[in-house]
Structures are given as C-alpha cells and as structure tokens.
C-alpha cells in the first residue's frame, strides 16, 4: 500500500518534471537578464529564458508511447486497422513503463482498434501543433539575438565597453560634458534643408 502511494507520488513528480525544469530555466534566464552586468551575458540569459518557454510548449504536446509526427509512407486508409493495432502495441509498451499515465490510452486504443480513425490521433503520433509554434519561436529567438548582438557591437563602438556600469558611467560623462543634444547632431544643424 505504502509502496503504491510512493510510486504514485513518483509518477506525479515525473508528470511535472518538465514543467518545473522549464520554470527553473526561465527564472535562471530572467535573473541573468536583469542582474548580469555584461551585455553578452544578458543575451545568453535571454536565450536561456526563451528555451525555457519552448520547453514548456514542447512538453505540452508530448505523448507517452507516440511516434514522431510523420505518417508512414505508403500506408493508406485501408491499412489503418494495422496502424491502430500498432498504436495499441506502442501504448501498451509505454504502459509498462509508466503504468498509470498511459494505461487508459492503451485500453482506449485496444478497445477501438476496429474503429480505427478515431483512435489514431490520440495515441499514434505526437501533437504537431506545439512543434510548429516552437519552430517559429526558435527562429524569432535567433533573429532577436542577432539584432541584439549588433546593438552590443554598436554600444562597444560608442563607449568601448560591454559592461553595463561602465557604459552608464560613460554616458553620464558624455552628457555632463556637452549640453548639446546628441539627437540633433552636428550634421543636422549644419546643413539646411534641401
């Protein structure tokens, strides 16, 4: 009895582990973004922060005992019976490993093996939608990283440092030196409108 509750607890933890890990990664990244002094470290933090979110989404679409979301080539609708049997087998496999979570699915699949089309989606393939979303998120992430790195190079060119406190000091110095607004630069004031 005690053993059973222990297994149940363990499974509960396993069922949450990815979400917890994604939260931890997210917090590590966010903390680095806020508190690191070095701009490149901030950006590494940013990437870690984003992967935390991606991990969350991908975990949301995971399924025990399911295959990668590619329909096997050459199988057609008349073979779907075969597929459902496959699915039941897979689910049963998974059921042995993580009994509680996948067992209903296995039963479900086995019961409806004849009525194939409705059980296919549930067990055979992983949910593809989060994958699609996260492809986009990864690409957006690298685009932001590229632009931010360009900004870091520009900051370095302007102030000779990529440590935030040094940059802020340099900015304070430069504004103390000149009362001229830096947005209205010299070329603007010098040349009249065409």
């Amino acid at each position, binding site marked *: 009895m005690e053993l059973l509750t222990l297994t149940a607890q363990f499974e509960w933890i396993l069922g949450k582990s990815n979400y917890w890990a994604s939260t931890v990664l997210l917090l590590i990244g966010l903390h680095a973004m806020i508190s690191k002094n070095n701009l490149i470290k901030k950006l590494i933090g940013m990437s870690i922060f984003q992967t935390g*979110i991606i991990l969350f989404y991908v975990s949301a679409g995971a399924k025990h005992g399911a295959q990668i979301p590619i329909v096997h080539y050459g199988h057609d609708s008349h073979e779907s019976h075969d597929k459902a049997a496959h699915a039941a087998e897979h689910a049963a496999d998974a059921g042995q490993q993580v009994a509680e979570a996948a067992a209903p699915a296995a039963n479900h699949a086995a019961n409806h093996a004849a009525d194939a089309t409705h059980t296919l989606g549930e067990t055979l393939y992983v949910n593809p939608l989060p994958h699609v979303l996260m492809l986009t998120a990864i690409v957006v992430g690298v685009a932001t990283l590229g*632009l*931010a790195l360009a900004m870091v190079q520009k900051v370095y060119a*302007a102030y000779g440092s990529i440590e935030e406190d040094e940059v802020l000091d340099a900015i304070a110095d430069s504004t103390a030196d000149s009362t001229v607004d830096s*947005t209205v630069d010299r070329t603007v004031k010098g040349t*009249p*409108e*065409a």
Partner: protein
Amino acid sequence: MMDQMPTILMLAPFIGAVGLSLLAWRRPAAAMPVVFGALAITVLAAVLTLREVLANGTITYLLSGWDRLPERAAGMAVGIEYKIDAFNALVLVLIPAIALINALYLRTRLAVECAGKEILYAILYLLLVVGLCGMVITNDAFNLYVLLEISSLTSYALIGIGRRRAAHATFNYIMTGTIGASFFLLGVGYLYIQVGTLNIGDIHEALMASSELRELASIKVAAMMIMAGLWLKMGLFPLHGWLPNAYRYAPTATGSLMAPLVTKVMVVVMLRMMVSLFGLDYLFAELNWRPVIVGIACVAILAGSFFALAQRDIRGMLCFLIVAEVGYMVGGAWLGNEAGITGAAYHVLSDACMTFCLFLAVAAIILRTGEHRLSAFRGAFRKMPVAMAAFTVGALSMVGLPPTCGFFSKWYLLIGGVEAGQWHYVACLLISSLVNAVLFFRIFEIALMKVEVEESGSFDVDALPEDPEDRWERVPVGTIVAMIVAATAVLTIGLLNRPIASFIATWIGQAVEVAP
C-alpha cells in the same frame, strides 16, 4: 474584391517593403514614393474595410481557406483567421493614416538622419506598419505574438539606427521588449495547455462554457502573464524604464511614428485580450484585480506627470507624459464598467493623435532652433506660428480642454471612475490634468515672452538672424502639412465625440453579447 480588403490592407505595405529590397537596393530616391504609395493603398483599404464593417457587421476572413466546418475539428478554427469588428476597423484606419502623415515629415528628414540607409529605413518603416496592423487584425493568439515580434524587431532597428546614444537605449528596449513578448507567449502557452486551441474566439467560448476551467490557477496565471507582458511592452509605470530614452534618442521621424502608435496599439491589444479573450465577466466578476491594477495606474499617472514636470528636455518631457497617458488608459480599461472601457478606447484614438501632433511640432521646433531644452521655445509663437498652433492644440488636448479630443476621452474616463467609485483614480486624473496645465502654460509663457531676462542679459527675438542659410531655415512644407493634418485630427476626433463614443459603446455591447 471587397472581401479581400483585409488582406490587401496587410499586404500593401508588406509588398512595398519587399519590393524596395528587391528592386531599389541602390536607389534611395525610390524610398519615399514607395512608402507613400503603399501607405496610401493601405489607408484606402482600411477605410473600405471600415465602411464594410459599418454596413455588414464584423468581418471574419479565413486565411488558407480553412473554413470552420462542423465535420472539420468540430467547427473549431484549424487555420488562422482575421476578425475585424468595429473598434479594430477604426484602429486599422488610424495606424496607416498616422504613418502616412508622418511620412510627409519623414521625407524631409530621411536623407539627413539616415544618410546611406534610406532604403533600409523605408523597409523597416513599412514593416512596422505591417506588424502593428497585423496585431490588431488577427484573431489567433500565437499569430499575434509573431506580429508583435515583427513590430518589436522593426522598432528596435528603427531606434537603433540613430546616433551614438541610441545604442544603449535600444539594448534596454530589446531586453524589456523580449521579456514582455516572452511573458505574453508564456501566457498563451498556459491557455493552450488547458484549452487546446489558439484561436481567440474559441478560447473565449471554452472559458465561458466551463466554470471548472475558469477556476484553474493556471488560467489566472495566464491572464497575469499576458497582462504583464503587454504592460512591459506599453511601458506602464514601474515597467516604463526603456521608454523615455528609446523615444528620445531615436531618429526624430521614428519618435513621431512610434510614440503615438506603439504604446497605443499595445493598449488596443490589451483591450482585445480583456474583451474578446478572457471576457469582462471573468476578469471582473471572478478575478477582482481591479483595485490593484487601478492603484498601479494611479501611481503611473502621478509618476508620469511629475517626472514630466521635472524634465528640462522637451522630448523627455513628452515621453514621460506618454507614461502618464498609459496609466490613464490601463486604469480606465480596468475600471470594469462601460464608461471606463469606452474612455480607454476613445483615449487610444485621441492620445495617438495628440501625441503625434506634439511630437511633430516639437521635432520642428528642435530642428529649427537646434536646442532641445525648454528654452527652445523662446519667441516661438512669432517665429513658427504653424508649429506652435499645432503644439497648442496638442497641449490643450493633453490638458483636457473642450473642443479637443483629450477633453472628451478624459470625460468618459472620469465618468467611469465615478461610477466605479474609484475616487483615487478620479483624483489622479484631475491632478495629472492640472500638472499638464502647469507644464504647458509654462511653455506658453516662454514662447509668448518677447524679451528674455536671463543671466545673459536681455535678449530680443527680433534681433535673431533672418538669414535663410542659417539654422533658422524655414520648416519644410511637408512638415507643415503634417502638423496641420494632425491638429485637425485632434479637433475632429473631439468634435465627433458623440458618434465615436456610441460607436465604441456598441462595440463593447456586441463583444459582451457574444458571451453567453
């Protein structure tokens, strides 16, 4: 043709931008004509869409042709769709219109401020408009994130293209913007894991249908993350750190495009999330965050106003006024009654116009005097009558004096505050208006004063050089036209207060009615 208008609206600036990159890589002269042409088509399409919405009600446009069929995923949306209701349609006209008018000003500045990068600037400018319109038009939560990132990336680049000082401001903006967008994405993820769809309408129906779902902590956290993300992007007070420097050090044409549009579109997105995604019933009957958020908004209003008062830099002052205005709108939206939300939605329109008006006038004045402090206004009424007229209209609207639109939107906000019994919000609104009055009348005083008595001795405006070759050159015609149009818009939106308010009220009514 008519039913394709929403797509044409999105694609005109998009094709313009891509076409510039494809055909005009080494022809800077082509930049402005393409910007004007593309934006003009967009405005036209937006106006036609608005007319269509007014005639036939909400438009739904299914991309990739995946209609909702009962046999296909039980009538849920498998593709992405546009949904244009009355308020959206109005904002969709506003965005390209402001961009188009701002392009008149941009034309005179492009070659000076972005020499050698004209084409790049024009591409980014058009794509920013695409991103902003796309956020308003889409009915898919994840698609909203993608377009949010497009508008963010373009705005980072549009600010970062500026001079030295812009670099660090942009870096901060990138950090804040990414956190905001990622929070939004996380909130959408929390909704997705509990509901299973990304379509805003479908999520709303699922939430309405099941009270168990509404009880879940993760849905509450989703609402919290989405709101926090949007507040970061719009610069609500404790999260406003990026805003003043980013708008101040950007190229002037970027400032006058982004200041009126970007924060305001974020408010529109917030309103849409509140009304169409979570539903007002859920937010106000079940969550009851109103006291906290209205409290934050009050602090934002006061802080924005007083920081603005402390600024010596004109553009910095305007940036802090935006922070205060964001407080108005967030507070109004979270008052939770019809008047409050009407006021917030109305204030989106009026604030966009008056901020635009002020930024244009200030840009003209700073350019002509070469000074960025309040002292730039010395004798401005005599020297730059048009710019000062526009400035006055915008300022009066900020203060909230009657025929201008600022008065009417603030009026609705006040009524909302009184009805909701949030007296501290009402008080903050009044104090802020008073501070604005002090702020602007101080400027008018400087501008009207003929003789300046300072440590440098007496100073006569008439003695200033009249030489056109000097820095006192005339303001370009494009800028003058842009300022006149902007000032007219401020007055028009004010005079049309009754139709606009009833329009917004019907929108809220319809949106709430949809909920069972």
